[in-house]
């Protein structure tokens, strides 16, 4: 695999996970989670700490990263989000509250980096995680393992949401909280689970992202527009749309820049972030409801001749 394609796969899988988390949180709690930025960075530092202090491949610390992100999500839910949801706060207020949480986390990350630097004599402020990686089939192992992990995780999530009783209850609550409450579903538990999954996805995505780029304390902060772009591209009301959106944004950024720089020269590389943005703007102007809002069924239904909505 060409190096740009390998990095592209890693990065796109990471964005798929983070954008999926953002979409899930937005769907269930109406919260546009700014804290995804620092939650992702935290996931990266969990893996980095593990690798730097205890050695071994970075992948073995991924479950730990997920759990740490889930913990951060639960703290956010019980400390902030729950009270605001009970109060029926506006979307902007919910968004701002997570921004505050994000800044607190950012400050804690910076302090932790100080501690690693001066206390443990490490260099945590510019980390290339690929030095801990190994080769697999002649390419970076991360470019095979991380997409696989993302696929396995998303499949598991899908099965959870479709097959288990609590998963269906989550979908029910997301769609209609009032009726779900009247049916006996405790929405509190559903929202907490969304924060567990969403936070975990953020950290997992952050840990994966660091395999494709330089890990810094502000890694999440610099990449959050792309996570948002992915979620918005997906349309914000379908989890799978969000995941797909994240993947498309990530791939567009890497593949698009590679293609353009071959055509026009290396100066294009500096404007990397313009590509997903243009893509986002284009999709939103044509389909204001995002990728999930594109009438796929109608498009392909016409091709296959399948009729929709056979009603009695």
């Amino acid at each position, binding site marked *: 695999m060409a190096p740009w394609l390998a990095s592209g796969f890693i990065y796109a899988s990471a964005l798929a996970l983070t954008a999926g988390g953002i979409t899930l949180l937005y769907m269930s709690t109406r919260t546009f989670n700014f804290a995804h930025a620092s939650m992702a960075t935290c996931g990266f530092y969990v893996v980095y700490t593990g690798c730097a202090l205890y050695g071994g491949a970075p992948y073995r610390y991924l479950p730990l990263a997920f759990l740490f992100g889930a913990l951060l999500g639960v703290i956010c839910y019980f400390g902030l989000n729950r009270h605001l949801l009970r109060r029926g706060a506006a979307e902007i207020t919910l968004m*701002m509250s997570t*921004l505050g949480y994000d800044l*607190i986390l*950012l400050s804690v990350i910076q*302090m932790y980096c100080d501690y690693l630097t*001066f206390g443990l004599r490490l260099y945590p402020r510019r980390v290339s995680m690929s030095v801990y990686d190994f080769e697999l089939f002649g390419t970076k192992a991360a470019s095979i393992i991380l997409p696989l992990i993302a696929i396995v995780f998303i499949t598991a999530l899908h099965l959870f949401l479709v097959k288990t009783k609590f998963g269906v209850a989550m979908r029910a609550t997301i769609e209609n909280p009032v009726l779900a409450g009247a049916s006996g579903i405790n929405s509190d538990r559903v929202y907490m689970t969304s924060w567990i999954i969403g936070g975990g996805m953020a950290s997992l995505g952050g840990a994966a992202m660091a395999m494709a780029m330089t890990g810094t304390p502000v890694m999440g902060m610099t990449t959050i527009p792309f996570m948002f772009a992915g979620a918005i591209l997906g349309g914000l009301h379908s989890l799978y749309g969000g995941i797909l959106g994240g993947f498309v944004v990530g791939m567009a950024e890497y593949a698009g820049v590679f293609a353009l720089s071959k055509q026009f020269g290396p100066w294009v590389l500096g404007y990397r972030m313009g590509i997903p943005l243009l893509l986002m703007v284009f999709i939103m102007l044509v389909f204001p409801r995002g990728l999930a809002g594109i009438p796929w069924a109608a498009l392909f239904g016409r091709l296959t001749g399948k009729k929709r909505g056979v009603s009695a």
Partner: protein
Amino acid sequence: MTGAEGFISKPKGFLPRREIMVAIIVLALLIFLLMNRGMPLVLTILIQIAIFAIITMSLNFEVGYTGIPQFGRVLAVIAGAFAVGAIPGRLLAMFMGLPWGASYANNAVNYKLVPQLNEVLAGSWLLSVGFLLLCLLMAAACGAGIGWLMSRPAIRLKEAYLGISMLAFGDFAMWVGHNWEPLVGGSTGVYVPDPFRVVYGARFQVVVITIFVFALLIYLFINKLVKSPFGRSLKMVRDNDVSAAAAGKDIVKIRTQSLVVGAALAAVGGGLWVIYTGTVTAFGFSRLVFTFWPWAFMMLGGIGSNTGVVLGVSLLQILRTMITTYRFQLFGFLIAWKIDPIHLDHMLLGVVIVVVVLFLPHGLVPENVEPVLPANRVRRVITDGLEPSKPAVNRPLS
């Protein structure tokens, strides 16, 4: 009806007028406390307060008065800063026959060229004042242009979508400035010719006074604007755009105007900032500093309250400076763990946002709800119905 009292009475202000005065005195005392660290520090704080007051007031104009989720404030600030960095210096160089094309922004040329321009400016009061006004005019024009561009998607997109798109474009503008050298010198940045060179000894003081005058003018301008019929239309769109449209307001036009005015004001703030610092570097304009900080200031002060915003900026800026100045005395315990307390700066902003959101949702100075009719008349209308002798609406609603 019991409901009547609820909606006529003003929301209970956390800080009525007298308390604002007290707060100002406290702020003055805090500044006095910092004075033993030297006059420059105090002046720096004052400049920061004034600049961020301008930017936050412009943000409040869009968020608080028009209800646009402006998460891309940095975009307009960048427009102003880049305009000042790129245009007026070039014009001056052109008139003097110096290189002014793409090479103007080249670091090797720029660091020799700008001192030459400064010498010219230092020689003439008239030229200096003209140059300053030209800078700000350029900033405002570019800001207005960017605001207009931002308003194009604003017609189609809803709340969160709009906020996030603007956030992303703010970042993009920063990257363009960083990569495209002919604009503002790319990663090395450019110097800005200094119109204050003409006052030799007292540059700092004059800069403070100038920026304060502009901040005051903008404060008065916004206050005047939101009390005008245009301001009432803005609030109408904010509170209920459907009913505003039904009442004959062109929502698209009103939102566009608000974005243009807000962006122009923020750009003036950005322009003043680079005139004060003397350099423009693209990476100096991060979303954290020029979007998220103003949001925190605004939320603390009270969304929709111009006075509150100024108070919020002053309070937080002074607190931040206190932390960074006295960090070793106040947070010695962190040093023991080899942690630099400077990172508490973000912590402060984060905690302020969280506390405001949870416990002070209307901020320190809640917005004054001013009924178009006097309160006693509204009460009479509610309890007795409209008097038949007078026409139903004797003052236009907007």
